[in-house]
């Protein structure tokens, strides 16, 4: 029997977790591109180094984004991945699929690409992994024919994403799916035609559990929340206790604000002190329901470390009601992007710009009032700027 050409990667075929190597090999049976990918990857495993060149710019007509150019640095050895670009396909909101749509996508990709894909990319796109420059446009044509469009890349609005929310989850305070879809459709131009200083990401989670990690990786994070008292079904509280939940220890003691008491078998909540952390509700969904007035907290600035260090998004609107067509929300997005566009340096994310110019300047520019909910605590340094009108006012 012939010796394997991929002895290192072969070692990743065994084990209980599904193997990407098997998938590459499966694609390689039909596609020379996938075969060369396999071989180049084996070389990387041997050399302990990547074998792709710095990306070049490729794209489809009328768009500036959606395709990531990629070329092998060993086209001599792996001619079929000399060009190996990815197409970022905007997923259906919530990553819901009917299989016919998914099969369509596979067919298009078998026709034009490597037969390999990422379901999904970290931003949320369906990533079609590897095609040649020639195939980009025809592939795009077939994709739109099948009802799909590209997602964002470069200095554009990136594909927005949302948690499953009202699609399945009892805790959805806002219609994360509809908001995300509405925003996506309203801002198509911004997704496809990079016009910003840098990338801009929007993610929508329908409650503070933040299942789409919006606070960590969106420039604009929308997170559902509520006002009003947590609704308690004391009968169900007893049922949870009977089923073995130690309510005192597992629920009350872990309430971060200690605003919850077990009074005999009944739960009492001092709602004024509750910070809506979800913990008690997470543990007892049958017994506890969020307050009735629903809306979202808007936060901005989240991002990964490059350039000035990672940032988590910051509260800029503690509570906004969100009803279709979400004009207040979209209007805020536009005001923010306008300001960022005007003052942001190249490759400066929104959070970095706010950091550089000051929250004070940002709030005034986009027309938001300062409220204590924006800060963990007021400033400690005395380097306070006053507005010119503050000074005049005080002059007697």
């Amino acid at each position: 029997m012939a010796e394997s050409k991929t002895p290192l990667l072969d070692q990743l075929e065994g084990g209980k977790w599904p193997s990407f190597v098997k998938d590459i090999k499966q694609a390689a049976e039909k596609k020379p591109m996938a075969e060369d990918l396999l071989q180049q990857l084996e070389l990387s495993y041997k050399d302990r180094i990547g074998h792709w060149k710095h990306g070049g710019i490729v794209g489809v007509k009328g768009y500036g984004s959606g395709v990531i150019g990629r070329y092998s640095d060993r086209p001599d050895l792996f001619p079929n991945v000399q060009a190996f670009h990815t197409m970022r396909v905007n997923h259906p909101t919530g990553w819901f699929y009917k299989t016919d749509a998914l099969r369509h996508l596979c067919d298009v990709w078998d026709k034009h690409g490597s037969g390999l894909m990422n379901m999904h990319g970290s931003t949320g796109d369906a990533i079609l992994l590897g095609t040649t420059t020639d195939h980009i446009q025809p592939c795009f044509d077939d994709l739109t024919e099948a009802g799909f469009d590209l997602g964002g890349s470069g200095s554009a609005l990136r594909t927005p994403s949302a948690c499953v929310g009202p699609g399945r989850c009892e805790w959805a305070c806002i219609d994360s799916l509809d908001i995300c879809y509405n925003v996506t459709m309203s801002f198509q131009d911004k997704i496809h035609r990079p016009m910003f200083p840098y990338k801009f990401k929007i993610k929508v989670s329908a409650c503070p559990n933040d299942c789409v990690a919006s606070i960590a990786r969106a420039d604009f994070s929308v997170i559902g929340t509520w006002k009003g008292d947590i609704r308690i079904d004391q009968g169900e509280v007893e049922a949870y206790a009977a089923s073995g939940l130690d309510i005192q220890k597992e629920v009350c003691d872990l309430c971060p604000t200690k605003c919850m008491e077990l009074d005999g078998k009944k739960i009492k909540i001092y709602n004024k002190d509750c910070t809506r952390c979800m913990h008690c509700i997470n543990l007892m969904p049958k017994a506890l329901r969020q307050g009735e007035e629903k809306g979202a907290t808007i936060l901005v600035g989240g991002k990964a470390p490059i350039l000035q260090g990672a940032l988590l998004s910051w509260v800029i609107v503690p509570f906004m009601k969100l009803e279709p067509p979400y004009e207040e929300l979209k209007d805020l997005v536009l005001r923010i992007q306008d300001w960022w566009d005007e003052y942001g340096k190249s490759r400066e994310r929104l959070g970095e710009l706010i950091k550089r110019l000051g929250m004070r300047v940002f709030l005034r520019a986009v027309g938001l009032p300062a409220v204590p909910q924006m800060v963990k605590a007021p400033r400690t340094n005395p380097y306070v700027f006053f507005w010119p009108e503050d000074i005049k006012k005080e002059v007697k």
Partner: protein
Amino acid sequence: MAKTDIGPPDYKTMLPPVIARNYGKWRYHEIPQPGLLVHTAESGEKLYSVRAGSPRLVSTDHIREICAIAEKYCDGYLRFTSRHNIEFLLSDKDKVTPLLAELESKGYPVGGTGHAISNIVHTQGWVHCHTPATDASGPVKALMDEIYDYFVTMKLPNHVRIALACCLNMCGAVHCSDIAILGIHRTVPKPDNTRVPNVCEIPSTVASCPTGAIRGDMKNKTITVNDEKCMYCGNCYTVCPAMPIADPDNDGISIWVGGKVSNARSAPSFSKLAIPFLPNNPPRWPEVVDAVKNIIEVYASHARKHERVGEWIERVGWERFFTLTGIPFTDKHIDDFDMATETFHSSTLFKWE
């Protein structure tokens, strides 16, 4: 001429009827067994979601196989999760057990729910990117094989979110993970003076450096790097391809712990450095797998119920974390970037170990 700006398919056309009927009217959920979520609507109707693991990097044929399963049990409805698992969406309770059986027979791990380890969010690595300091899919596969049991059970104190990024760009929410695996370079990029003048814009290359290590050398239309100020982030390479940074001997992996995203109990927070460097040892990265397993096991045996990794460490203290895991503390653990001083202990309130 192709249509443009059509946007993604309307998600409403993708929703199973049981969801369409009960949209926004869910009442509660239960997790009767690992990988099975049962959501009950106000109407009393139930949705069964069966969650299966995925390598994320999949072939079209693999997707077609998933489609076939979904057609057989779910009227063709499925979804993917924000952590790249597959969810089969059933309205018919009777089909759950047969589906589980078929998934088992085909080798799909079912789990990732509740107090489990879910899929590892990860990135491209050597498969597609140009800046990786390690591979992505390989270490993930090697690690998931070893911690598989935590995916198919729910026996941890709380869920543990692991993520991997192959370079400091940190694609994915790696920086806020219970355990983050991060590829790092450790070699100062050497500008190729013959190429810089042609392919790089000097001012933006200079501006790209977070620590100001790069100076423009306008006369020679190139740039110079101050070795002492460079921490190998690779950002200059992103902007200027003529500054390669990859190096098999010094590239590798660092491990970060204690981040979280949810607002449950404690605020979202960044992961903190646990292990500054482990070598790239393909194909199975044994050092990395062992290090992560060790952290998980120490967490599993010391944390209280519902405590996330970071919440546990905050309670017992970082001194104790290093003692319990046996990980050596070094000067690299002490921050020296722009807000470093915020992390210094300015009190006498620490533990001896």
